[in-house]
């Protein structure tokens, strides 16, 4: 971050290049000699993991696009994917890496975001960093949605119909916009073709925003598990080799999980209905999006009114953008905020719970065998009412709990600096501290 660059070009060529385009200097300052807090734990490795996921998706995606055909006579798109699976050399591997890679990408991004929430990484002066991250997340969701449509299976088609019809809920302009999106009276070949074009485009936009995201990170420097700012050189170590190797290890561990899905359970996260070519005349019995969209699907279906449901669904993501201003806490890291930690844990469970709600039919019995009673439009013993309960907590967490907690809680004593708790053990804590802070997050 701030501070004079330590890069010294040693050869004639590197000096020549440095005076014309200091790109090696930029790489050196950002990824070699960059002063990084020395106490980062494994939750901090997910940024690097995400960059690796983006690279994998782009590489496999560009290759798949060499063989994929979107539109023609007959089940062209569906059959071109099977052509990749059966005829293209190693095509089955590239396809499964790309499909499961999307799931792994979202798994990593959710962990990365939860890290941000827990350690207060979104708080000043990193608000723009956080907002850029939210933009990346939105672009990822759009890319994932577009990509799932491309194989043109039953679930691809159903997903395209459901999501584009949501836009129709907008008053006055809704119908015109959906017709414009479809390129016709319904989802069809023109829709698929433009989805392919956009699916190829968006990842490069993501890459651009990622560059801004890393730039925005490098201005204040990384947050760390204590949430305490870097005070001196004693608090930091150079990014290389300490974090290049640690990130490398975390990436390989992540790849092991990735490989287990790709090679042993490649269809586990998908849906059997998508192995049937799209049939506009036959709707699948249970339409579900991919797992990473399920919580938002649950929020959407919890609200009886279509437009309000759409607004709440987008609102649940929009809330993230303004989080830095909703949080009133003076303490950054939840390591020292025991009440916040509890509500955060509940939030995580609520998000997972919303995911399960999204996977089930709204009117399905929540507790089998219990008949329950009718409450307004649905039986109380149904996934809809659970979704409504969990949605309430989700919004309350951001709009009520987070602002209030910062004003009312009693945080633990925060260490003076990053180095203090490590170097001096218990003596570093001020007198009267109610509990010992954990050493590792």
């Amino acid at each position, binding site marked *: 971050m701030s501070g004079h660059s330590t890069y010294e070009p040693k050869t004639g060529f590197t000096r020549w290049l440095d005076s014309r385009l200091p790109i090696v200097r930029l790489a050196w300052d950002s990824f070699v000699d960059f002063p990084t807090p020395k106490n980062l734990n494994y939750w901090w490795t997910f940024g690097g993991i995400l960059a690796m996921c983006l690279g994998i998706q782009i590489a496999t995606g560009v290759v798949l696009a060499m063989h994929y055909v979107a539109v023609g006579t007959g089940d062209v798109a569906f059959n071109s994917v099977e052509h990749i699976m059966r005829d293209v*050399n190693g095509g089955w591997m590239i396809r499964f890496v790309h499909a499961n890679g999307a799931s792994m990408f979202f798994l990593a991004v959710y962990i990365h975001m939860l890290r941000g929430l827990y350690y207060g990484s979104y708080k000043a002066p990193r608000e723009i960093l956080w907002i850029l991250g939210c933009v990346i997340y939105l672009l990822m969701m759009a890319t994932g949605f577009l990509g799932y449509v491309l194989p043109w299976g039953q679930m691809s088609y159903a997903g395209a119909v459901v999501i584009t019809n949501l836009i129709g809920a907008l008053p006055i302009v809704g119908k015109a916009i959906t017709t414009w999106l479809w390129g016709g009276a319904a989802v069809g070949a023109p829709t698929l073709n433009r989805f392919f074009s956009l699916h190829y485009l968006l990842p490069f936009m993501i890459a651009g925003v990622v560059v801004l995201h890393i730039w925005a990170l490098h201005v204040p420097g990384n947050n760390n598990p204590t949430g305490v700012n870097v005070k001196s050189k004693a608090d930091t170590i150079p990014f290389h080799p300490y974090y290049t190797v640690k990130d490398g290890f975390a990436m390989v561990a992540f790849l092991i999980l990735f490989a287990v899905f790709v090679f042993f359970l490649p269809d586990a996260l998908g849906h059997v209905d998508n192995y049937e070519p799209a049939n506009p005349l036959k709707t699948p019995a249970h339409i579900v999006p991919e797992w990473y969209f399920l919580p938002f699907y649950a929020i959407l279906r919890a609200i009886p009114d279509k437009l309000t449901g759409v607004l709440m669904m987008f609102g649940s993501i929009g809330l993230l953008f303004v989080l830095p201003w909703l949080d009133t806490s003076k303490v950054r890291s939840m390591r020292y905020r025991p009440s916040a930690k509890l509500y955060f844990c509940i939030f995580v469970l609520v998000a997972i719970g919303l995911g399960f709600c999204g996977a089930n039919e709204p009117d399905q019995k929540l507790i089998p065998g219990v008949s329950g009673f009718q409450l307004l439009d649905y039986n109380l013993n149904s996934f809809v009412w659970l979704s409504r309960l969990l949605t309430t907590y989700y919004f309350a967490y951001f709009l009520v709990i987070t602002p209030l907690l910062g004003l009312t809680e009693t945080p633990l004593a925060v260490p003076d600096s990053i180095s203090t708790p490590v170097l001096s053990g218990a003596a570093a804590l001020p007198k009267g501290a109610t509990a010992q802070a954990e050493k590792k997050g």
Partner: protein
Amino acid sequence: MANTVVDSDPHAGDPNRRDFIHIAAATAAVGAVGSAVWPLVNQMNPSADVLALASIEFDLTKVQPGQQIVVPWQGKPVFVRYRTPAEIAKAVAEDNAPMKDPAKDASRHKDGKPQWLIVVGVCTHLGCVPNFGTGEYGGWLCPCHGSQYDTSGRIRKGPAPLNLEIPKWDFISDTKVKIG
């Protein structure tokens, strides 16, 4: 408080930055990247469905003596020519004539069946399809830049550098051949 942790110079007491373990890890990384890149490159090689069409069978009884039939193979035209005895004799007689790409006629057909000449109908100059039977040598004449081939498909005049290519082919019966 006793402070047993060293933190001033990260490299103090570390005599060997090129420790074996780092080299081993870096080697494993190179291996991983290489094995990841190979499938991404190999996928552009011909796929199974393209290779399935890599060989075709052809019924020789369709060709009249002195005529040729053009067979599409792997996207290219292949000339299957039923040579007359006069054409064979002329080709053999000129075996030692000066030519850019010398070749004996015997090397350009299967043993015992000199009447069957199978060549890829793509001019070795810039890729046009030569015309049958025209030109001074009785073989083919390429209309694009005037290359002339004899009745053995050898380049005799004009800018083409090589003889017409003989594809991999074989008899699978007296009247059927497999090309490719």
